[in-house]
């Protein structure tokens, strides 16, 4: 490999040797230091490569041994440079191209933000813009550690951040912190309220004055356990209040009703294989559409797929040149009928999906009933669901409320 590169840089000649004493010519030439490679015999003729500087020596030994040496071609870098000397504008073009590439790769053309879940992407890009980093900004002169520190200070959810610019790509890798558990200050007065309408099935109070018992019906927002404790009585004239942070675990029977409607007809899509392609060229912030190859104006129904391609030198050097291909696939819609049984299956599937989303896995479902009503055009399904779930929520008693009540006393 190295030898090939060296031969290319030094330049080499492909020669043809003919005559009666070719072997003698070769032996004398190599004894004088001429190096041959890729020698091949073809009948009476003999082909080989030698370096440019040895060509005159080869001619000398050819004359001495009575053979003939002919140069079939000159190759390598010196030959290319000789050609380029005659093509000045190509040389200038090449230089301008290289200069253009150096110029274009001096800017940030892509910002990748990895590892965010809670922190908003746009918040981070807005913050980076404040720091002078945006698409099209000069990529040199950033203090990576300073940006990382500033990000940690700005976003409390960031546990670790790494910022770097590789090529024309800025990469921000973030590890978000674990959501801190809410610290409840039990020294402040608070009530326990119901979060849902329910029938209480279990109540265990550690602190506070219970307002309901098991079997009672409670509405959402109602106080189940009060943080205000009534001391004495008005009749005896020693009525007073004390406040505490009510703590109670309350489970209730919650009733849900869900309605679903499944149409008994649907449209089946069939693609016609007619595709309309549109191209948009994006250069930096400027973009323009190329005329569509097949306009597809007569498409009544179609599905659109967009594909984006960005020019890039390797992975780390994206350039400000991209094109977006918009493909519109024409389709024909056929009206089809759906049987009641299939519609019921759909309804059950939708119901189960919604129950999983709304009820969650922690709550116990004690009863589930689905009532179907067949209509002309659709099937309606009503789901009645009973669950046992925790319904308590701590709600602070407003200080103003406490003070007012104390003043009333």
């Amino acid at each position, binding site marked *: 490999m190295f030898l090939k590169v060296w031969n290319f840089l030094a330049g080499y000649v492909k020669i043809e040797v003919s005559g009666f004493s070719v*072997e003698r010519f*070769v032996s004398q030439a*190599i*004894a004088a230091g001429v190096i041959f490679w*890729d*020698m091949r*015999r073809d009948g009476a003729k003999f082909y080989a490569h030698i370096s440019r500087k040895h060509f005159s020596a080869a001619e000398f030994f050819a004359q001495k041994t009575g053979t003939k040496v002919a140069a079939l071609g000159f190759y390598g870098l010196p030959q290319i440079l000789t050609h380029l000397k005659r093509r000045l504008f190509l040389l200038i073009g090449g230089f301008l191209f290289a200069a253009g590439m150096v110029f274009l790769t001096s800017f940030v053309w892509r910002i990748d933000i990895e590892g965010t879940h809670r922190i908003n992407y746009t918040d981070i890009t807005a913050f980076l813009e404040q720091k002078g980093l945006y698409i099209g900004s000069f990529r040199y002169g950033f203090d990576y550690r300073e940006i990382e520190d500033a990000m940690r200070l700005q976003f409390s959810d960031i546990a670790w951040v790494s910022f770097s610019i590789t090529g024309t790509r800025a990469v921000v890798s973030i590890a978000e912190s674990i959501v801190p558990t809410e610290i409840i200050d039990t020294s402040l007065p608070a009530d326990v309220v119901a979060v849902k309408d329910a029938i209480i099935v279990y109540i265990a109070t550690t602190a506070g004055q219970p307002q309901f018992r098991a079997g009672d019906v409670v509405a959402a927002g109602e106080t189940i356990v009060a943080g205000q404790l009534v001391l004495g009585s008005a009749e005896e004239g020693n009525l007073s209040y004390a406040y505490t942070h009510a703590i109670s675990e309350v489970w209730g029977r919650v009733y849900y009703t869900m309605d679903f409607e499944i149409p008994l007809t649907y449209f089946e899509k069939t693609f016609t294989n007619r595709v309309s392609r549109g191209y948009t060229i994006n250069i930096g912030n400027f973009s323009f559409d190329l005329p569509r190859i097949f306009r597809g104006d007569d498409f009544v129904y179609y599905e659109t797929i967009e594909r984006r391609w960005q020019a890039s030198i390797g992975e780390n050097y994206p350039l400000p040149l991209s094109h977006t291909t918009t493909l519109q696939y024409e389709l024909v819609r056929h009206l089809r009928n759906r049987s009641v049984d299939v519609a019921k299956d759909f309804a059950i599937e939708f119901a189960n999906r919604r129950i999983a989303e709304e009820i969650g896995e922690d709550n116990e479902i004690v009863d589930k009933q689905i009532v179907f009503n067949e209509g002309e055009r659709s099937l309606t399904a009503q789901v009645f669901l009973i669950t046992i779930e925790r319904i308590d929520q701590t709600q602070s008693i407003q200080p103003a409320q406490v003070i007012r009540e104390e003043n009333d006393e």
Partner: protein
Amino acid sequence: MRRFDKNGIKRRLVTALELPKDVTLGLPVVNMMGGEEIFVDNHKGILEYSVAHIRIATSVGVLRVCGEELLLRQMTHENIAIAGKIEKVLWEA
């Protein structure tokens, strides 16, 4: 009277001192890589070359390499590299 053999003494001395013979006596070194390549060091030039056989002069005789589509891949005043389908390598008497 016994003839003075300069080479014989040199050879015995090299053997006794365990010196490399290719360097001290200029003996050819032949290395083969499978049946595809053969490298000959310390040669004294090629005597004959065709696609079917190559004869190489050395200090201890002529080395003949026989095969098919033989190619002198590289040749300097110190070594020769031959590529091709090598079938036979033999010393000519």
